[in-house]
């Protein structure tokens, strides 16, 4: 069984204690022999030899202790080096963690983008259809005024009062109010229901538009040409603008 070696400090203190005890004993024996004037048979010599031996050990141990002190200084420097490298390794670890997080985010976003691309590819629409649709929603002049529009033109990009009243909702409300109020046919204009002759025919309306349907309504085979300038319709518009109770014409 290996005996744990004693530390240098323990050995030094032990030898110092021995030196103290031996020197005390030597002094006591010398004092006793002097006072009693009786020679001690070799005892003082033995103590003296032990004292010299212990003193030598003490000196050797102190030399060892000095060397250990220098080694201790070197170990402290090495410990500082180890700490510095530990700090560098921790810094690298932190940077690696940040890089991993950044890359993981980038990969996730790229995957999401790929999914969107695949989804778009599956639901792709031809450019012709998109252009046709754009024409369709633009033909009612809702996104751009007609080429012949001038200030004073009652036409608006939204249904006006006249158009609403000439539509299905207007007819439905007129039917209900005629039953209650008993309007005469001559008051049809006041009631908001226009006779067929006076129904405005705006250039942007196609031939498929019926009376009861709110403009604009186009079928699948719509005309791709933009609505053209119609003098007859313009006259109707001028006539209507003088009789219209709509305040929208004054808005310009």
């Amino acid at each position, binding site marked *: 069984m290996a005996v744990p070696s004693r*530390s240098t400090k323990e050995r030094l203190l032990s030898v110092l204690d021995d030196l103290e005890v031996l020197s005390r004993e030597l002094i006591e024996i010398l004092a006793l022999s002097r006072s009693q004037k009786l020679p001690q048979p070799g005892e003082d*010599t033995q103590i003296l030899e032990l004292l010299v031996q212990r003193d030598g050990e003490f000196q050797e141990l102190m030399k060892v202790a000095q060397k250990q002190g220098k080694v201790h200084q070197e170990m402290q420097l090495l410990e500082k080096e180890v700490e510095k490298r530990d700090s560098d390794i921790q810094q690298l670890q932190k940077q690696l963690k940040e890089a991993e997080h950044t890359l993981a985010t980038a990969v996730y976003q790229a995957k999401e983008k790929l999914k969107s691309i695949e989804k778009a590819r599956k639901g792709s629409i031809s450019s012709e259809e998109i252009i046709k649709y754009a024409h369709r929603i633009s033909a009612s002049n809702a996104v751009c005024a007609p080429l012949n529009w001038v200030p004073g033109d009652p036409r608006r990009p939204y249904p006006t009062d006249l158009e609403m009243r000439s539509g299905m909702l207007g007819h439905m409300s007129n039917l209900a109010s005629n039953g209650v109020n008993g309007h005469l046919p001559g008051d049809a204009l006041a009631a908001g229901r226009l006779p067929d002759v006076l129904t405005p025919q705006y250039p942007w309306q196609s031939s498929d538009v019926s009376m009861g349907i709110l403009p604009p309504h186009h079928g699948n085979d719509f005309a791709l040409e933009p609505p053209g300038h119609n003098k007859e319709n313009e006259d109707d518009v001028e006539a209507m603008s003088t009789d219209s109770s709509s305040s929208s014409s004054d808005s310009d």
Partner: protein
Amino acid sequence: MAAVPVQQDPEDDDYSLLPLVHDIIKCMDKDSQDVHQEINKLKARIQEAREQISTMPGIDKSPEEQQQQLQTLREQVRTKSLLLQKYKSLCVFDIPKA
């Protein structure tokens, strides 16, 4: 009484207690009144040595244990230096040439 062989080594004078013991014995031989003074000097010197020993660094271990610890520290420094050098010069990604 046998003479005390005292080596006059300048390095050993710092730690040796024999000169002080020799002085005490000389005073006793002369029946001098300085015996007590010399004895007090020896006691003070022993106490000084104890205090010096308690403050000396690096003697909490035996020399063998200390050497072992020193070797361990050197190995740690060497290994960590190699690792750092390896990871700092490592290029994981093959950068394509333009």
